[in-house]
Structure formats: C-alpha cells, structure tokens
C-alpha cells in the first residue's frame, strides 16, 4: 500500500476542467516529482491534496485514510504539510516564531497557562525553543533565529518555509516550486537539503518544479501534467525521454 493514493482526481471551475482524472501513488520514502507546462494544474493538485480546494471527483488516501473533502486543518493533522509557490511566511514574526507555529499542535498548553505564565508554560516554551532551533540547524538558519522572517534573503525564506512545514511532523511533505528564483548554487544546496530531509526525517516528498536539473537530479518517479490531464508517469529517466513529454513540455 502506497503512502499517498490519488485516484481519478478531478476538479472543475464552472465549465473549465482544471484537473481531470489524475492518478498517482507515492510510496513511503519516495521523492516524487510533478512537472508540466504553466497552467497545467500542478498547484491545483496540491491545493486539492491539502484541502484548499474540494475536488469534484476522485479520492485521496493517506496511509489508508480517506482525506477527500477534508479541510486544510484536518489534513495537516493527518500528516500532510506543504510550502507555497509564492512564499507565505509570517513575515512580521521572528524566524524562531515561524517554526514554533509549526510546533503549535505538537507541544500544547492551555490559554490560561499562557496568560499566567505558569511553570508548564515556561517548560513547554523552552521545549519548543529547543526543538525549533534543532530544526533550524538542519537548514543552517540557527544564527538568524531572531531576525524578522521578511528580512531573510530569498533563498533562506524558502528554506524557512520548509523548516516550518517539517515542524508539524508530517508523513508527507509537499514542496511547490522550492527552487523558484534561486541561482544554480542555491539550487544545488537545496537539492542536498531535500535529500538530507528525506533521509534524516524518513520523509516522503512530493514536489512541483520547473528546474529540470533538480527534477532529474533528485526525483525517483515523476508525473507529467498537461492541460489538466496526466500525460505520462513512471521512473524519471523513462518519462523524461518519452517523446510525448518532450514535445509537450521539454522541447526538442
């Protein structure tokens, strides 16, 4: 049984079939890529998997549990975390607080304990601080923990978003164009980080990316979307050499 099973997934906005009959099964520990031209419906698939949109047909199962039609909050609690194509950090809050918000549902204390700064508030806040710093260390952000998130350089903001998603201890991590706007050096670094996250946290990762070097470099399997339908899927090398994929997306 695969960790994530997507069957016949589809959504239409009025008469437009943004995604139609999309299937994918992502095995545990796999690095799975989702590619395709602009407007093919890749982010729409992400939005359906994370509950931002309700699919009009099809089912989504995570670890055997049906997630179809649940909202973002429930889906996160079931173990899916994501990053966004246009970075969505809590920009007026510190780097540390961003990660601590990811820990919100892991380490809990009541509102009253927070208001009275009770002993358990102090203990749990300390625990949160330590855990957040240990996650930031993975991404080399531990020295900037006190910065406002909006003051970080672009590449680090991307990393912080991944760190924040990881703090929710997901089973599946969705990365929406993690390398967008990065230079080749930063992309190389990011590839190492993604691999490291997969091995260190024993994570399954589904990612959307336009940078073919990154996709070919780290993804084990990929699916190609074109005009909302699935064009091809399978092992990375096979799919990237598929003539249909070359005409539709890669170019000759």
């Amino acid at each position, binding site marked *: 049984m695969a960790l994530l099973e997507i069957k016949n997934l589809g959504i239409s906005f009025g008469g437009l079939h943004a995604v139609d009959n999309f299937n994918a099964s992502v095995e545990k520990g796999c690095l799975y890529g989702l590619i395709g031209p602009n407007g093919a419906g890749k982010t729409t698939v992400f939005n359906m998997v994370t509950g*931002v949109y309700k699919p009009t047909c099809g089912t989504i199962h995570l670890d055997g549990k049906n997630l179809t039609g649940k909202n973002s909050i429930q889906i996160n609690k079931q173990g899916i975390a994501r990053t966004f194509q246009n970075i969505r950090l809590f920009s007026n809050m510190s780097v540390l607080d961003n990660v601590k918000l990811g820990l919100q549902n892991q380490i809990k204390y009541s509102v009253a304990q927070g208001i009275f700064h009770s002993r358990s508030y102090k203990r749990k806040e300390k625990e949160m601080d330590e855990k957040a710093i240990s996650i930031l260390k993975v991404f080399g952000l531990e020295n900037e923990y006190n910065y406002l998130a909006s003051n970080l350089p672009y590449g680090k903001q991307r990393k912080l978003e991944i760190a924040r998603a990881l703090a929710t201890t997901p089973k599946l991590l969705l990365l929406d164009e993690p390398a967008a706007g990065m230079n080749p050096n930063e992309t190389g670094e990011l590839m190492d980080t993604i691999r490291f996250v997969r091995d260190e946290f024993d994570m399954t990762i589904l990612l959307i990316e336009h940078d073919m070097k990154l996709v070919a470099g780290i993804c084990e399997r990929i699916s190609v979307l074109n005009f909302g339908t699935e064009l091809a899927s399978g092992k990375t090398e096979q799919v990237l050499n598929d003539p249909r994929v070359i005409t539709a997306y890669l170019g000759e």
Partner: protein
Amino acid sequence: MKKNNLNIHNLITYGIVVAAFLFVSILVWTGNASRHLQAMLVPIGLNIILAVSLNLIVGFLGELTLGHAGFMSVGAYAGCLFAIKYAEILPTAVRFPLAMIIGGLVACVFGIIIGVPVLRLKGDYLAIVTLAFGEIIRSIIINLEFTGGASGLKGTPQNSNFYIVFVVIMITLVVITNLVNSRAGRAICSIRDNRIAAESLGINITYYKLLAFVIAAFFAGVAGVIYGHNLSILQASVFDYNRSIEILVIVVLGGMGSIRGSVIAAVIITALPEMLRSLADYRMLIYAVVLIAMMLLNGSQKFDKYKGRMNIGGLFTLLKNKKSAKEAG
C-alpha cells in the same frame, strides 16, 4: 537572549504606567492636582484599558472592528444593574469587583454571540457588521424599561476611583502582553500575517479569532462597569460609533500591535481636548490638526529615524560615540 529582550520591553511598559501612577498620586496627595485633572484620571485610564484590549483585535489579529463601544455598553449595563440591586446588601469591596466580573462576562457572551457568525467576514465587511452591532445594542438599551431607557440608568453607587482603574489597567496589560507572548498569541499573530499558511499548519483559525474577540470584549465590558460607577447617570447615547472610532484612533495612533503605544496614545488623545479647552472655539480644530500631523509623522521614514536616535538606547550610543571620538581625537 530574545526572551530577555522581550521581558525587558514589557517591564519598561509596566514601569512607565507605574511611574505615571505614582507621579499623579503624589500630586493628588500633596494637593497639587486641580479638580480638572482629577476628573480626567478615570476617563484616561478607561481609554487605556479599551485601547489595549482593542489592540488585540486590530493590531495582533489584524481585523478591523468598530463595535468596541457596544461591548463596553453591554458590560456597563450588566455591571451597574447588578450593583444597583445589591447596593445595600453587599459591601463595596465585594460588590464592585463582582460587578466588574459580571460586566466582563456578559460582554464575553455577547462577543461569542456576535463573533460566531461574524468572524467569517473579513476586513471592511467585519468593520461594517460590528458597527451595526454597536448601533443595535444602543437602540435596544434605549428602548428597554429596566435599563432606564433614554433618560438613563440612575442610582449606581459612585465607587470608581483612580486607584481601582490603575489596578485594572495593570491586569489588562499583564494579561494581554502575556497572551500575545504565548502559544495562543502566536497563533493570533499568524492569522494576521498569513491566514492560508496558518491553516496549512493546522492552526484553528476560527477558534483563535473568537478567542481574541472574546478577551477584548471582556476588558471592554470591565471598562464599561468602571465607567458606569464613575458617573451618577449612565446613558446609552454615549456608547455610539464615535466612541468606537475614538478608541480605534488611539490604537492606530499608538501603532497597531504596540501595547506601549496604545497606553501613551490613550493619555494624549483623552487629555488633549481638555487641555485645549482654554482655546474655546479653536479647540476641535487644533485637536484635528494634531491628529493629522501625528498620523503623517507616524508614516514618515525620516521621523522614524529621528525617533530611533532620540530614544534612551540611542542616547547611550550617541554618548559612547562622542566619548570614543574624543579619545581618538
């Protein structure tokens, strides 16, 4: 490191309030405070409580509401009706705090009743609906028998004084700053910064919005009870939208999300029209001009730099630089 800075920042705010309180107390004890000044102390304190609590919604949650005076009036009537009924039965030391808690809790209940349907709305829509709520509450109170109707509610014992207001201000400050620096406060701020990202982290948006709304309503209700105990007659007409907007002006002027700013702005905005009374006809004109000037300066980067140099920390660096320049020279 960061935690310590935060604690020091909060302690300075508490320190400013305590110092101001001591200063004014000394003035009153030594007989140097005019009756005019003494009459202003409770209204100033009330505006501090109202502004700090509204700041939780406007500054930290990032939602615009114009119904704060509505919560204040609900609390005021609940607390004062209780106080009138038990005026002869309970001693003041028990009755007044109990009235404040009852007023606050009733305002909380209204906060939930209004909040559940209304908090799905955002921005301008929320502002308009809360504005309407305040007006509805006011008309209902005017048309009811037991609230005294349009002629007002008479007979509330006048127990409010400057010292009680000070205690309530300190409680408000501690509760709101502690809340903001806790798990719930972080969630509230995250909704302001990016609602979609907050949802993707599994943060229950509706719950935390309602929480902020209810806590702010509680303190508005408590402020209402103190207000009712300060005057011989409680009239619903004072809780109109002008009152809500006055509180909002204080919050915006003091800086959204700055508790210390709210405290300072509350003092200035409440005291200014009274201090300008000697100018008679030009009073409201000057008040408006000062408001506009402060808003413009708040948004100006040049003034921001100037402000940065002129605070206490900046003064120290300035002295240090001068000293090192002298040594080098």
